[in-house]
């Protein structure tokens, strides 16, 4: 039994323990603090205060309320130049 399963058992154990170790290290380092703010990390200001053409009026109003008034100037091409 053992010869056929040894490598896979060791490999999965190492991968599992590595993940557990990194998880606790991340916890101790505060990586799980301020969760809701972390969600904003990929977004820049100009991601959030530019209204989207697919948004409804209420969604645009919601965006203004959450992220402030549209601050971007109109730049030709940013909404697509593919003709």
């Amino acid at each position: 039994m053992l010869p056929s399963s040894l490598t896979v058992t060791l490999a999965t154990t190492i991968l599992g323990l590595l993940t557990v170790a990194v998880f606790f290290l991340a916890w101790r380092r505060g990586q799980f603090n301020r969760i809701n703010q972390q969600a904003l990390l990929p977004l820049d200001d100009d991601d959030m205060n530019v209204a989207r053409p697919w948004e409804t009026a209420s969604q645009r109003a919601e965006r203004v309320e959450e992220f402030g008034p549209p601050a971007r100037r109109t730049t030709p091409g940013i909404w697509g130049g593919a003709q």
Partner: protein
Amino acid sequence: MSATLPARVIALASPITDMENLDIRLRADASSRQVALRAIAFSVVWLLVGSAFGLIASFKLHMPDWLVSNPMLTFGRIRSAHLNAMAYGWASSAMLGVSVWIIPRLVHTELRVPKAAEAGLYFWNIGMVLGIVGILAGYSDGLEWLEMPRYWADPFFVIGGGLVGLSLLSTIAVREVEHLYVSVWYIMAAFIWFPIIFVVGNWPTYSGVESAAVNWFYAHNALGLWLTPVCLAAAYYFIPKILGRPIYSYQLSLLGFWTLGFFYSLNGMHHLIGGPLPTWMITTSVVASGLMIIPVMAVGVNQHMTLNKRFGALRYSPTLRFIVFGSVAYTLVSLQGVFMAFREVNRLTHFTHVTVAHAHVGLYSFVTMIMFGSIYYILPRLLGREWVSEKLISWHFWAVGIGQTVYLVPLTVAGMFQGVAMADPTSTWETVVRAMLPGLIGRSIGGTLLTIGHCVFAWHVFLMFRGGKQKQGLPPFHEVAPIVTKRDKASFVAGGVK
């Protein structure tokens, strides 16, 4: 200054202004530009090569006498060349490019040791050439997903992946933000997991049953711990970016990541149900496969809720269209995989075309579609110009979208009939094979559509690199806005409400 700044300042290491923000993004993009562009170029070449191999292999299944005189073109070699060209050439090269582009943006710093990443990319692709030539020449290692010659080709992948990983991990180490966004976790983990599973899988000492066990440990994890994390990272980056709103629940995204890490590596043994392995190994794997419902639903629910009530965006952004297609496919293929891991279902589907179709939902509908979407977003920002043709994007999407349906549905149905027929002791082998023909022909028609879509995409990418004629004003290089293809876009005034 936007109303969100206070929240973001908490998450970031130091307060930044709009202009600093823009500057960070520009520097991040500039630092990864060379590597990402080359990775995308290489990946598209492999996409075409892999498609040609796949198409030949598919036609051979119902035209068995076609191209049999040359050993290089026999099914065993062509099919292996197809799998390796698509998984390591197309998907992995694209993933290297996407990772190298996303990480500097998310950690707000320039890519470190870009020369190492570039060298890694070349090593990877040299390995690809040697590997494919080796397979075609008959020097396959004979293990699924590990066919490329162990001593000629595989070291190039270890060195290549290691060098790109070194560049990415050192970039993360000197990051300018305190927290790691979930996409960073996924990419970082993928570049740590992959060398471990690849070296274990290719270790030259196994034989017999152990070889089969290690083979499926590797093959299953190649999808779950290499391809999946980078693609989910891309989805978690691009969906909020295009919608301009954070993901629905960041907690769920972390739950998805960590449970993937905890459970996935145990999954592979369900491929060997019925094989001469200890029962506890198989059962552990079946249980772990069942537990995969947690990360899968976490991702699926999160991405659906992020997009909820904004599905109209799919008409505007090709990136979003491809990525949402891929994300939905991730949920479907994972749930399908959970059920296929159960012994009762596995008895029917094992050794049938259901498995082939399932693998294509994973590697194509999920991985490939997300990579297409990522490239549609990244390339204009790196080249500083817009995609040349809205029509080409549309043709690409519909060719591969319809192609997948035509490919997958008949093959899955045929595979189920195949499983039932093979379980029937009164059915002859010839009867089973003949019953498969409609599914196999459907597969070839679908594969042809996919290949047409790939040619359209490759041509469009070529036009982009060549600097095709632009019909627009300023390039979107500085902008974060999605690329819009809807015809009535002129009616929208960016930044305002029409």
